[in-house]
């Protein structure tokens, strides 16, 4: 442990084995101090950033049927829906009125909408002049398989239609054992990484997420982080890493397995471990939407330097029982009270 501490303090990279040793440590301060050291090295200014945006889910119809999801509607249920252009327009203008700079656009894997549908949606949204942070890798892979085009070609066309950046969703745990068990119809770990690699090559910035606290082992969490770190070494395309715990309410997974919600202690540990291990990803986001304002504020001392988004609208984790809401003003108060300066940012972390 002494050796690991010295390495982190000296700004050296820790290995997978060292990660596992650290993960076995219940000393919350030690993890906090180490994560905070890395955070301060990467972010010497006392800023905590946030973005004003809205999640728009263009459809909840999804063929993937992931066991951890409480949001989707299977196509045969006939209860799902697709947003109309009018609804899109209204949501975007509301966002802009609130000072919003971007839309996080994600949806289910719809069984039959052609690529042209998504291109048209992007062109329409871009005509309203807003940054579109959209389509996670499982959606991109799904568009490719439906259209018979390569991921490269799909990305070229979406970028041409106006796609600005890609959210890191659908990563869950980047380990095929876990994916086979929970989301067998979703893209594989290799495919997820390949989409991000191609997006980075085509000049898009992206984020990366991790949903932990279900059936995965600590070794599989490490595998996930290792894949992110390896790709980042190659491309430097990730702007931020966003870990959050599985929210079990109303999910098939919680009905079939006795899974308890990850506790705040476990969340802070994982956040700190991520900050320490991912030495090449600039930003780590706090997940107030799953942890609530108190723990999110505390996470600023466990490696997080970003409060994520104001999320004017959020549907996915709300369906799984997370109901926290925060206004921009409240985010500013939480950040200031913790001794930092709140700063609004854009997707690429430039300050507004």
């Amino acid at each position, binding site marked *: 442990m002494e050796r690991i501490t010295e390495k982190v303090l000296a700004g050296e990279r820790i290995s997978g084995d060292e990660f596992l040793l650290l993960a076995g440590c219940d000393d919350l301060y030690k993890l906090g101090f180490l994560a905070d050291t890395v955070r301060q090295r990467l972010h010497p200014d006392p800023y905590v950033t946030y973005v004003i945006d809205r999640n728009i889910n263009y459809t909840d119809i999804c063929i993937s049927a992931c066991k951890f999801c409480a949001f989707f509607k299977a196509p045969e249920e006939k209860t799902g829906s697709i947003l109309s252009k009018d609804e899109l327009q209204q949501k975007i203008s509301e966002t802009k009125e609130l000072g919003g700079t971007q839309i996080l656009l994600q949806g289910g894997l719809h069984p039959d909408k052609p690529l042209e549908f998504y291109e048209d949606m992007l062109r329409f949204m871009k005509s309203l002049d807003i940054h579109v942070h959209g389509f996670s890798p499982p959606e991109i892979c799904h568009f490719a398989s439906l259209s018979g085009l390569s991921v490269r070609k799909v990305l070229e066309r979406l970028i041409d239609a106006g796609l600005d950046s890609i959210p890191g969703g659908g990563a869950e745990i980047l380990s095929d054992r876990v994916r086979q068990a929970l989301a067998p119809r979703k893209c594989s770990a290799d495919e997820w990484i390949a989409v991000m690699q191609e997006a980075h090559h085509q000049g898009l910035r992206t984020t990366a997420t991790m949903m932990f606290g279900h059936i995965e082992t600590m070794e599989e969490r490490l595998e996930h982080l290792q894949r992110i770190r390896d790709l980042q070494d190659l491309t430097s395309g990730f702007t931020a890493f966003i870990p959050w715990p599985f929210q079990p309410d109303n999910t098939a997974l919680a009905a079939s397995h006795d899974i308890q919600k990850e*506790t*705040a202690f*476990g969340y*802070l540990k994982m956040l700190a471990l991520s900050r320490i291990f991912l030495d090449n990803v600039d930003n780590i986001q706090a997940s107030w939407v799953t*942890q609530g304002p*108190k723990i999110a504020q505390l996470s600023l001392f466990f490696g997080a330097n970003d409060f994520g988004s104001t999320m004017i609208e959020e549907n996915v984790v709300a369906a799984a029982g997370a109901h926290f809401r925060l206004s921009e003003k409240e985010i500013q108060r939480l950040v200031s009270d913790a001794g930092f300066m709140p700063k609004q940012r854009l997707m690429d972390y430039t300050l507004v």
Partner: protein
Amino acid sequence: MDSFIQQAGFGDIYDKVRSGQRLDLEDGKLLYETNNILALGYLANIVRERKNGNKAYFIYNQHINYSNVCTNLCKFCAFGKDKSSDLAYEMDLNEVKQKVRERLDEPINEIHMVGGIHPDLPYSYYLELLQGIKEVKPDIHIQAFTCVEIHHLSELAGKSVGDTLEELKTAGLGSIPGGGAEVFNPRIRKLTCEKKLPGEDWINVAKTAHRHGLKTNATMLYGHVETIDERLEHLDILRRTQDETGGFLAFIPLAFHPKNTAMADLSRTTGIEDLKNIAVARLMLDNFPHIKAYWVMIGPKLAQVALSFGADDMDGTVKEEVITHMAGADTDQALGHKTLIRLIREAGREPVERDTLYNILQTY
């Protein structure tokens, strides 16, 4: 670790904490004003582990609020109601007994019972409440009536506080909860709870209880209009009292909840503020055996984390909490036994089920 703490700018506080020396009010101020919450937690944890090792306590208890009718109507309170209010209620003896009877099959070992300062319930009512609960569940420990209520009861009885306490003890009172302390400073009492028992009288009731063999708790309501100096003065008064009597079991910092109160324009406390109050209390109150993170007030998530910031007790299952929920608490009104054990274990601590007096009933 030393280097992290030394960077925190705590001067000789670290040495004092390690050698078990008492901190002065200036030290307390420095601790309250720090932004280094990790270093503060680390220091508080030294004291926490010295006193309570790796144990984290909880209790299987039941809350009963016999009436919300109150003549004090403090500005920070959403529970108390004027007698004429549509929302006013009072339970008769049978209702209270029924509440206990309904849960006789559960392993409850404490009844926590408080109410308002009722204008016309007679002294006999309170004695009968205690006797009635004991009739239904003879072996139960009743922790009831804050120092403010005890003072009121002694006035009703026309007897000294000591004599009143002896009668209450005979009727079944086991110990006294820590409520009604708020912030002792007269400026705060004038601004927020003018009609309430003054701080020095609260302390005198607590001291009298200690002399009569009753253990009590102490609280502080923070996060409204009090200053850091006023908080520290409050802690200092408690510390000096404890030096004298040794009768306090636990200190419980209470986060002000503004909703539905006369101070609803104030913001809710943040997580950092909550943790600071727990950690500073652990460091300043070197003669209090226990510091409680009351999950009803700060949420189970933060209460769990607080076990690393000085707290050694999460209170209990607390079925049917009313007082904080009237003021907009969004926590559950009860936490299962299993959930509490899990939260404690996941925090790397040893779950210990206790009775009111901190006798160990079971470890998990």
